[in-house]
């Protein structure tokens, strides 16, 4: 029998993790935006009866969508592992990579498991007291938007590592995109206070701008991780350039300097 080509591919683990990352984020977007319709989020000012209506409107979507996350949500570890690997490949202390790994690993439970549990418990008993249904609704949205610290510090850790790195693993502009992502965690904090307006959990700042930044950020790092895998030489020095005519657009200053 022919030996699968994947087994002889030296970058096989990296590619597997990268494809799993793409699969996870695609699944995540589909489940949150299309299946459960929990993004864009419900209105924070809904009264208990409206919350009951909101749950009724999405009953099957919530239960099926979050069941899919209950089964496959652990794949989020693949992107964390790959980013940890990328930081480890930089000319910085391993304290950075391990910090990133631990921060994002612990973020999973409050960051996405709580919303799955709260919304499932809410949807499974539509006849429950409406005041308690709203309690679950608040728990779901606020734990999801309001788990801030791990992403704030995690992004700053990644940013600092990129800025210090001499191995050119990531372009410097991505460090500043990390800063943008960290700032979204700052501006989402008022959603713990306001029920209406731009800073509420569904507001222009706390949701719309944040989701755009997060989308650009995620798209960028998935693309840059792919570039990193293509460039990986398993050495410890600077990563070689990608043999591509588009490469200068990604590393403009640094390619010119080298």
């Amino acid at each position, binding site marked *: 029998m022919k030996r699968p080509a994947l087994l*002889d591919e030296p*970058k096989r683990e990296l590619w597997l993790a990268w494809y799993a990352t793409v699969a996870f984020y695609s699944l995540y977007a589909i489940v949150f935006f299309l299946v459960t319709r929990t993004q864009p989020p419900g209105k924070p000012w809904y009264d208990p009866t409206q919350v009951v209506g909101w749950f009724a409107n999405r009953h099957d979507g919530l239960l099926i969508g979050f069941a899919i996350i*209950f089964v496959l949500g*652990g794949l989020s570890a693949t992107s964390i592992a790959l980013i940890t690997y990328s930081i480890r490949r930089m000319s910085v202390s391993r304290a950075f990579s391990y910090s990133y790994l631990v921060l994002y*690993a612990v973020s999973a439970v409050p960051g996405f498991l709580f919303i799955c549990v709260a919304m*499932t418990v809410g949807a499974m008993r539509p006849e429950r007291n409406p005041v308690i249904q709203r309690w679950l609704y608040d728990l779901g949205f606020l734990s999801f938007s309001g788990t801030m610290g791990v992403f704030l510090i995690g992004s700053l850790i990644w940013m600092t590592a990129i800025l210090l790195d001499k191995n050119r693993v990531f372009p410097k502009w991505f460090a500043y995109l990390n800063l943008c992502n960290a700032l979204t965690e700052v501006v989402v904090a008022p959603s713990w206070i306001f029920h209406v307006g731009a800073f509420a959990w569904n507001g222009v700042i706390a949701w719309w701008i944040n989701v755009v930044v997060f989308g650009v950020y995620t798209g960028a790092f998935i693309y840059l991780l792919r570039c990193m895998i293509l460039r990986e030489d398993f050495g410890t020095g600077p990563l070689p350039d990608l043999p591509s005519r588009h490469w200068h657009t990604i590393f403009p200053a640094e390619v010119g300097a080298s």
Partner: protein
Amino acid sequence: MLVGDFSECAVPTKGNGAGLVSGFRIEGEAAERRRNARSQAASQTLTRLVDRLVSPPMNRTTGERIIFWALPGVAIVWIAAFFLFPGFLPPMSPKASAIQVAAFYAQHTSRIRYSMILFNWFCVALIPILMLIVERMRLMAHRTPVLRFCVIGVAGAAPIVFLTSTIFWLLAAFRPYRSPDLTLLYNDLAWITFTCGVPFLVALCLFVAVAIYLDQQAKPVFARWVGHFNLLIAVALVPAGFAGLTLSGVLAWNGFLSFWVKNVAIALWLIVMAVALGRTLGRERDAAEDFA
């Protein structure tokens, strides 16, 4: 002399030619065929030796055996707590009314508290066991530590999900005479977290399976069937994720698939992985003695 990143150069990989590849000493197929079992063991021991040189000297094997042999003790506590909790045998019905659930907590308050305190203490004892697997993964013929990072990434969250469910159970039992609606809420949160909270266990089994399949060497760390077994367990855990969909039947949180298959799968996984780990620990000890 070895060059490159010592912590990852556990064993050579098959294929991709021979010689130095970008700072790593990679041995090719021809060299691998020449090597006998003893030199293989010696090369693994050499890796451990290099590891020790870059970290403070300590007796790793003894430490790992202490963690390993703590497992039966911990397992006894888990089994005892399982039987002590009155809501597992038989599993509580999701169709019970708020009044019935409140009555259950009022009637069995002490046993619920003691069993969940035990689980709360010891469920996270899974983490050191998972770290033993992570350490074995160092010896696998992988080029990168990515799969190890994947396992570390889910190793904490997996028992923390269970810990969260014990908190809801303990909260329900803390004031059993509160409004029955609130006790029902805590009970639902506990059962859904406990039953559906399998994403990290599913991912763990998948990562371990992939790691074993990619461990292409003459004497792999874990046998290939352990990889198949992990895949099987991952599949067995899947239905539990859908427990929220129904209040009765095999998928409900007290159903055949969501309760019995899931929990038996976890117990089986622990037993099989413990046996597989025990074999690798013994092999390493023999290799260390040979090398000495």
